[in-house]
């Protein structure tokens, strides 16, 4: 059916002259013109895109070439202000001041609730453990001179009073580095014992000759185990045997420490 009914079509077309109003024509043509104008500006899009790529690629390249810039951006300000553990252990006052400033900075940035929740984990984090780890070395050196020992003990006491959670980390630390991680080391006055026993370990290390026979080696190991197990009487006997085997060595330091420990 390609052909229309001619009579019907003619009749239909005869009275079929309705046209849209003039104002509607004007509005549509104006809209068409407006739609045309912005797209004319849009012809610059490829050039703008190319220009933006030309700008961004060198910037990205520069950023990739300098990774330290990226690292410095990633680090936040409070972390930058945090002192490193090594210098802080050398100077206890500076360490305390740094901790104070650190906590002040954290309190500036965090809510009180957040700060409380943050303080708990901080005391048992790796940084704190690391900080505590440096203590045996420090104490071992300190015990060599009596004056420094006096300084180290109040410092330790101060830490215990200011941050009691640090106590929880201490047995673990000495369990790794020293031989006195027994139940006695958890006593309230265990810090001094731990320091002394740590010193014994250091002294044994210093005194112990490098070349030893099997029996001598066994005696030294027995001594270490006996100190670890706090078998002081057996310690004295083993020491006597060691003195006989190594008459050139001076065992007075170890003797004194064992005596101190046996009194406790």
């Amino acid at each position, binding site marked *: 059916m390609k052909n229309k009914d001619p009579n019907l079509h003619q009749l239909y077309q*005869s009275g*079929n002259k309705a046209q849209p109003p003039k104002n509607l024509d004007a*509005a549509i043509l104006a809209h*068409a013109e407006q739609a045309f104008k912005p797209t004319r500006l849009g012809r610059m899009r490829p050039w703008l895109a190319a220009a933006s790529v030309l700008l961004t690629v060198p910037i990205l390249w520069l950023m990739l070439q300098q990774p330290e810039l990226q690292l410095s951006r990633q680090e936040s300000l409070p972390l930058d202000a945090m002192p490193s553990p090594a210098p802080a252990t050398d100077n206890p006052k500076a360490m305390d001041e740094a901790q104070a400033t650190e906590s002040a900075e954290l309190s500036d940035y965090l809510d009180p609730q957040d700060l409380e929740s943050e303080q708990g984990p901080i005391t048992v984090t790796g940084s704190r453990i690391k900080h505590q780890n440096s203590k045996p070395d420090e104490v071992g050196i300190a015990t060599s001179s009596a004056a420094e020992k006096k300084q180290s003990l109040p410092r330790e006491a101060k830490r215990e009073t200011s941050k009691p959670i640090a106590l929880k980390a201490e047995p673990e630390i000495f369990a790794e580095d020293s031989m006195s991680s027994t139940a006695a080391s958890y006593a309230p006055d265990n810090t001094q014992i731990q320091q002394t026993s740590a010193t014994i370990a250091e002294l044994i290390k210093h005194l112990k000759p490098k070349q030893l026979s099997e029996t001598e080696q066994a005696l030294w190991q027995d001594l270490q185990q006996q100190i670890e197990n706090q078998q002081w009487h057996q310690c004295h006997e083993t020491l006597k045997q060691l003195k006989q085997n190594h008459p050139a060595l001076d065992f007075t330091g170890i003797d004194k420490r064992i005596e101190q420990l046996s009194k406790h």
Partner: protein
Amino acid sequence: MNQSVFAFHVSLYNGLMLRRVNRATFTQKTDAQLMVIYAQNNIHSQRAFNVLYERHKGPLYRFVLKSINNETQTDELFQDLWFRIIQHKDNFNAKQTFTTWAYTIARRLLIDYYRKQGKRFEHAYDDAIPEHNDESTGHYQLPEQVLQQKRHAQALHKAVTELPPDQREVFLMFHEGDLTLQQIAEITHQPKERIKSRYRYAVKRLKNTLQVLL
């Protein structure tokens, strides 16, 4: 002095001739070519759109008007229809005809309109008779003949508005849009045979109505 006046006249004449040539070339172009020119966004785009609009504004307006029989709503829908054509000019596929594309958009708008009115397209009857600006056909006719033809035309238009929407749609697209039945089938997503039968029913119904009225 005379030479400058002569040069001015020559340039004016050339400009007018060029404008005439451009206008002639644009009017000779097909709808699809004009739409492509408009979508290209060059200096000829606006002129191409003007020609396209002049060519199709009447049929599209009447199609919308006779579909909904409401002049105010027709103006809104007609404006919306052309705005959509403008907005989606880049989506026009030159392989299809402009009329198919435009009537597809118009049909979707009408379906949306019916939905807003709370009617389904298949049951959207509106008995309101549109008031048209009827004009003479231009042929020399006796006043009695003119009057009679006017009456017949009015009766036909009334009968068209009273057709069921699916038949009215096919009739209007066939007579207003000059679309083929195949194109109407594409637009309405119906088989061609169904469109053909709808048109037959529409013509039969119109003739019956006209016999009763006249």
